[in-house]
């Protein structure tokens, strides 16, 4: 069970990609690197093709996949986080304008300030995410001798509780609260934003709570469905385009 869980969470694929490269160097196998693309095209566990990340590297992808699957587990209410596209949403958000600091005032001087002054780091959201994953993994290595994605569910829960309460502090000075609030924001956005951004796949986040989506012409409904559930018909931007 334990092994299966790890495999499901990207363990196998990443290890294969990494060891293929490292092994190529160490074992002097001239063909090792050539075999990698074919390996990458193999179907990973879960449905859909390999996602193809635009920002996350192998370690980061493993972290994010483990994180969203832990935070949004599969049950009768929705599929698990990766199957809802949350890792893809986060990757695209970090690769895109928001991740690169669009609409963020990025001139110094830089000072920590007080919490009421809001975000003050000299990092774009993508840089923050990258540094935060590295710092969290460093914490996990120190505490459990494993990176976050290789922890069991209890240990993952312990780490997330530590991050969300800022009981964990990062040795390199990165403020945990800022990292966590950014992580949390992206998970929520990935779950509930329109599916055009790669998350909320099949509108599973909207279905979970009963948000109907974009048609939203309720002038009659507000009378007709007073204290009644609106019949399920979930519509995203792509469905109407």
């Amino acid at each position, binding site marked *: 069970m334990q092994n299966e869980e790890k495999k499901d969470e990207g363990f196998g694929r990443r290890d294969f990609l990494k060891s293929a490269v490292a092994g190529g160097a160490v074992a002097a196998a001239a063909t090792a690197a050539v075999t990698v693309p074919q390996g990458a095209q193999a179907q990973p566990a879960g449905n859909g093709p390999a996602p193809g990340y635009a920002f996350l590297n192998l370690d980061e992808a493993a972290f994010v996949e483990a994180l969203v699957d*832990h*935070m*949004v*587990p599969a*049950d009768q*209410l*929705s599929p698990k986080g990766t199957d809802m596209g949350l890792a893809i949403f986060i990757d695209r958000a970090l690769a895109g304008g*928001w991740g690169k*600091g*669009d*609409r*963020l*005032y*990025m*001139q110094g*001087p830089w*000072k920590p*300030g*007080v*919490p*009421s*002054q*809001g*975000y*003050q780091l000299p990092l774009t959201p993508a840089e923050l995410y990258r540094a935060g994953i590295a710092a969290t993994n460093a914490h996990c290595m120190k505490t459990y001798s494993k990176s976050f994605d290789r922890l069991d569910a209890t240990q993952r*829960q312990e780490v*997330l509780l530590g991050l*969300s309460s800022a009981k964990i502090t990062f040795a390199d000075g990165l403020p945990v609260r800022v990292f966590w609030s950014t992580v*949390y924001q992206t998970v929520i*956005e990935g779950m*509930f*934003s*329109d599916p055009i951004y790669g998350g909320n796949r099949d509108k599973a*986040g*909207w279905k*979970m*709570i*009963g*948000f*109907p*989506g*974009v*048609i*939203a*012409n*309720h*002038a009659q*409904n*507000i*009378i007709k*469905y*007073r*204290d009644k*559930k*609106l019949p399920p018909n979930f*519509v*995203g*931007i792509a469905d*109407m*385009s």
Partner: protein
Amino acid sequence: MAKKLPEVDVVLVGLGWTGGILAKELSEAGLKVVALERGAPRTPQEDFSLPRIRDELRFSSRNDLTQNTQRDTLTIRNNPSQDALPMRRLGSFLPGEGVGGAGAHWNGVTWRWNDTEFKIRSRYEERYGKKFIPEDMTIQDWGITYAELEPYYEKFERTAAVSGKAGNLRGRIENGGNPFEGARNSEYPLPPLNQSLACDMFTAAAKDNGYHPFPRPVANASRAYTNPDGSKFGPCEYCGFCERFGCEANAKGSPLITVIPIAMRNPNFELRTHSWVTKVLKDPSGKKVTGVTYTNTLNGEEYEQPAGMVALTAYAINNVHLMLLSGIGKPYDPVAQTGVVGKNYCYQTGAAATLFFEGRQFNPFMGTGGLNVGMDDFHYDWNFDRAPHGFIGGYNVAGGMTHGRPISYRPLPAGTPQWGKEWKAASAKWYNSAMIISSSGSVMANRYNYFELDPNYRNVFGAPLMRMTFDYKANEHRMGEHAANVINRIAKSMNPTLMNPATARTEPWSVVPYQSTHNTGGTIMGTNPGNSVVNKYCQSWDCHNLFVLGAGVFPHNSAYNPTGPVGALAYWTADAIKNRYLKNQAPLVSA
């Protein structure tokens, strides 16, 4: 060197509600008007079409319609002993940008502020004595009266298609309206919106508690409507994408579907978008302005636009910034308490309870920007005695939700975990079965809440950012406690299955979570040049051909949303210019 353009009669800096009203009125009066808008052109047909306008991530989380803080922002601090640091991203408030300004993405709530505000110092001193007002509370009478503004309120309500129910028609109290409002000459142009389950439940509870609930007046058209200028409105679709979004149904009162297109059809009017005004220019005497300089952001070139008259019609905060950058009027100094530009910056405060009713279906996503029921018993009811509670101003209480957009709205009972199966189950269970009761409270002016230029940080044009120093004071905290108690009392009387009670805020103002875009003051109106930047006609005391519009002219902030008086004062100022100033170009009030 800036390229000098031929002189025009009027330059408007910013084209939202106030710029649109002045553009229309002054060009109809035969003046050559140029509006300089720093953002992009925008039309509802092109920019607010379905389905793309229904994108919560883009327009709400990422603030696509608002000011880009990468280019220009503020520095902020809670008090003068702190280091002010830049507001690096939007949070607490959302200034608009682009044609239509914040008028494109407001909720539409439209109130009439009355002499409770305009004569605030006289009325409190009369009733409670001079000592009731704390020494550092720098509230003052505005110099204008409700009776003077009443016709202009009516004009704005009819222009913007406000739906509501009169509570006081020419002195007679009307059933179903706000009994505490100032006397109005006529009904709202449109009847109230259809009420939601949450509205009805709150109405019943408020009545049971002896209060006077009424549907909040709002520029969301309750049915199709043609305004006096011939602008057509469709009926509101209750889509739940109102604040932060443009309206594809043309049901929200917006300058983009009313005054601006009318001005655009007038050959006297010219709009230049992507035009970032960097300075208002003074003549050598300092008694008049001669025009503005601006940068065309399409090519980086600088232009000088001479003008017979300049009106600042940008967002409140940006108007103050431009005054400071232009060196017009003496900057406010909180230590010496001299100067006026930047003085009396105010904000608003709020408290809220979430009520969970197992099995009820509130359908929060069927909402509009103003779909809630308000009660004014602790705000415009002058009979409510503040003395035992020790605060000035007040708050209104409202029940109902304006939207159910799921990134930001997922009510959860306190103590629910932040992730995992339990979190998912609670999200699913309560999303449709919760309702909100909230309050909006006034903020009184304080000596140490103010604007000035920042000494350290610059915007992308190389100009100093503006520095905001703001925090809530004891007056606001006392009012917040009172409001939280009232909310919780009403809420408990409704017997919810579970409830997250309202708590009065005690922590300092924070720039992080969204609170309200009701920033006021900084270019305040008053009775003389010693206490204000502009006279009652929004005319600069220093330069008589400079007019400053918007909520920056409010010397303190009400519990009410500001757009009602912002619109009314724009019509009032336009009238003063047309009927008086053009005949005799001089101060309209002698100093």
